[in-house]
């Protein structure tokens, strides 16, 4: 009897609403960086996911059930990401996970997904290790580009430039190392005449880039590959520009890691090193298809932002893949949805995309272009902006 009382007491203490309705919503956990430096991508990605869910639910949801998004802040740390993901699975009883941002969070949450047999779609982490052969399991999928695709796309473009002395500057952690290695290897392969004359590795979150900038200029590269992201890229540019860095390399820079996103150019405004090449996941001015134009208009309305974020599309597409897979599977069971995702092709706002069967990786390319000033906007844009299809060099 005492046992029973203790049980009831404990259950009462931790009381949770155990609603058991027939048509309860499909719950999707969304662990994402919502505070700290990574939040500048995480927060808009969540917006994109929210917009998709709102639109889908307005149309009646999927399999007649609504989708409920349950976001959690991972604070940019892998152990927090693991904690909130398990909490989402065990407490909120989410059916799926979509989210994570950094190359530390992605693989860490992948382990949780595997152990709990919950489908996990990573819309932002790029590290190759997430879907590497020894780490791959039936429940992990990626709708972001990976470091191989990004590095090689950049190499394809730089190979056409009339330069041979190449330098690199990248943050010293998994993403920076992986993408730089992919770039260098692919470039050497398609253009053997290039020479890597300098490689700088500032630590992630470096505050003072001047020593690295000086060291790099001393080696006199003709072109530079950068994978500094977000605020780090902004800080780097603010310090490099007055030192004459961009004049020295004649603006021959390929800045990946979405340095060409409207958010980045908007934040820097007149300080942006106009003339460099950069990439982005999305651009509101990229009026490629009616579907994309329509998406942009909706997003602008949803976020009340005249120039809506380029990161929203990652949250949007991640959720879209999940919903379409549920529809295709006709079920919310992990194993069925996981199988439905293999080889699934959907129409995203950025065009058709497919999750490959062999490595659970979507053929998500990025937009590349040269940054120019445009009188229509108070900040630089990519022009002409080109979607680089990665399917040729994904392996």
């Amino acid at each position, binding site marked *: 009897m005492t046992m029973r009382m203790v049980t009831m007491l404990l259950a009462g203490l931790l009381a949770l609403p155990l609603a058991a309705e027939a048509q309860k919503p499909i719950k999707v956990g969304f662990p994402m960086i919502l505070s700290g430096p990574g939040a500048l991508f995480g927060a808009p990605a969540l917006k994109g996911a929210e917009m998709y869910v709102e639109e889908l639910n307005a149309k009646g949801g999927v399999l007649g059930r609504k989708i409920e998004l349950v976001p959690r802040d991972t604070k940019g740390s892998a152990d927090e990401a693991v904690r909130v993901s398990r909490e989402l699975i065990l407490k909120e009883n989410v059916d799926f996970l979509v989210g994570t941002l950094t190359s530390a969070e992605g693989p860490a949450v992948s382990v949780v997904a595997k152990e709990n047999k919950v489908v996990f779609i990573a819309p932002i982490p790029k590290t190759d290790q997430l879907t590497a052969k020894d780490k791959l399991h039936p429940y992990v999928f990626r709708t972001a580009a990976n470091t191989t695709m990004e590095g090689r796309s950049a190499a394809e473009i730089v190979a056409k430039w009339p330069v041979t002395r190449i330098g690199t500057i990248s943050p010293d952690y998994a993403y920076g190392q992986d993408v730089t290695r992919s770039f260098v290897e692919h470039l050497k392969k398609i253009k053997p005449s290039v020479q890597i004359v300098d490689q700088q590795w500032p630590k992630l979150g470096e505050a003072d880039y001047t020593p690295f900038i000086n060291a790099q200029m001393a080696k006199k590269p003709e072109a530079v590959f950068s994978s500094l992201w977000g605020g780090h890229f902004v800080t780097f540019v603010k310090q490099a520009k007055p030192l004459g860095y961009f004049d020295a390399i004649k603006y021959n820079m390929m800045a990946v890691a979405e340095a060409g996103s409207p*958010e980045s150019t908007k934040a820097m405004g007149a300080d942006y090193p106009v003339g460099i090449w950069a990439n982005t996941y999305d651009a509101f001015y990229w009026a490629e298809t009616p579907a994309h134009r329509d998406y942009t208009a909706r997003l602008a309305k949803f976020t009340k932002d005249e120039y809506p974020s380029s990161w929203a599309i990652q949250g949007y597409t991640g959720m879209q893949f999940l919903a379409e897979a549920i529809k295709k599977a006709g079920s919310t069971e992990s194993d069925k949805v996981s199988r439905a995702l293999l080889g699934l092709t959907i129409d995203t706002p950025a065009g058709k995309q497919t999750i490959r069967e062999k490595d659970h990786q979507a053929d998500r390319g990025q937009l590349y272009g040269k940054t120019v000033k445009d009188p229509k906007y108070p900040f630089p844009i990519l022009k002409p902006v080109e979607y680089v299809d990665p399917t040729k060099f994904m392996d």
Partner: protein
Amino acid sequence: MPDPSFIFAQSLSGLTAAMYLFLIASGLSLIFGVLRVLNFAHGSFYMLGAYGAYQLVQWLGTGHGRFWWATLGAALGVAILGGLVERLLFRYLYGKEELYQLLFTYALVLILSDVAKIFWGTQQKSVSRPPGLTGSFSLFGTTVPYYNLFILLLSPAIALGFWFVLRRTRAGRFIRAAALDRETLGALGVNVDRLYLGVFMLGSFLGGLGGALVTPVKSIVPGMDTEMIVEAFIVVVIGGLGSFWGTFLGALIYGQVLSFGILFVPRFSIFSVFALMAAVLIIRPWGLLGKPLK
């Protein structure tokens, strides 16, 4: 052997970084010297100075002289905030254990980081260099931006100004007296309450000023508060907690170690500054130029 102009460029960049750090850390050191409190929230004041400058530039525009008004306004705003915190809350903890004071300042860190997020969101912000200081000039084969030169001159000027105030004015004498022996201070007829308030506001002002002045060379992002506070701690510990010139020296050393450290041991440059901090504490806990606490 790297060529001399390169070495010059590296040491100059280390020097510039040091001058920023000095500006920020001197406020921390001043508060510690008088109030005997390590203020974790100093990094938050620095962050608010940066966001404040950004906001004022948005309102005032980027015309001539506007940046300077924005900087001054942001620093004053932070000083007022610091004053409010001291008057309304912090003063009640003076007699309490150090742990309570430390944790109170940490509570401020948590609160202010979310407050900044509520006001300014999570997108990175940026402020352009003020007109007139956008260019650069060449010195011994090295490009030196005018803005960096300005910082290189401003920081020592502020240091000298402080030194003058501390040495030559009545308030300065009280501050020094408080740093040495605060028990007798009240007996001397000093209004200790007002002194503490003034020092706290001045320290916050310096933190806010540092934050505002750093905006032309750094992006403003969430999380810049906790990044900075650790660096400022290292600087004041190396130089000596509460020692004014010690902070200056600490900043100089820190700047050079980082600037040259990345050339030789790039991967362990963050390790080396913490090791330096530990070494100073082990050999000379009161820092290079500080005096042992009584």
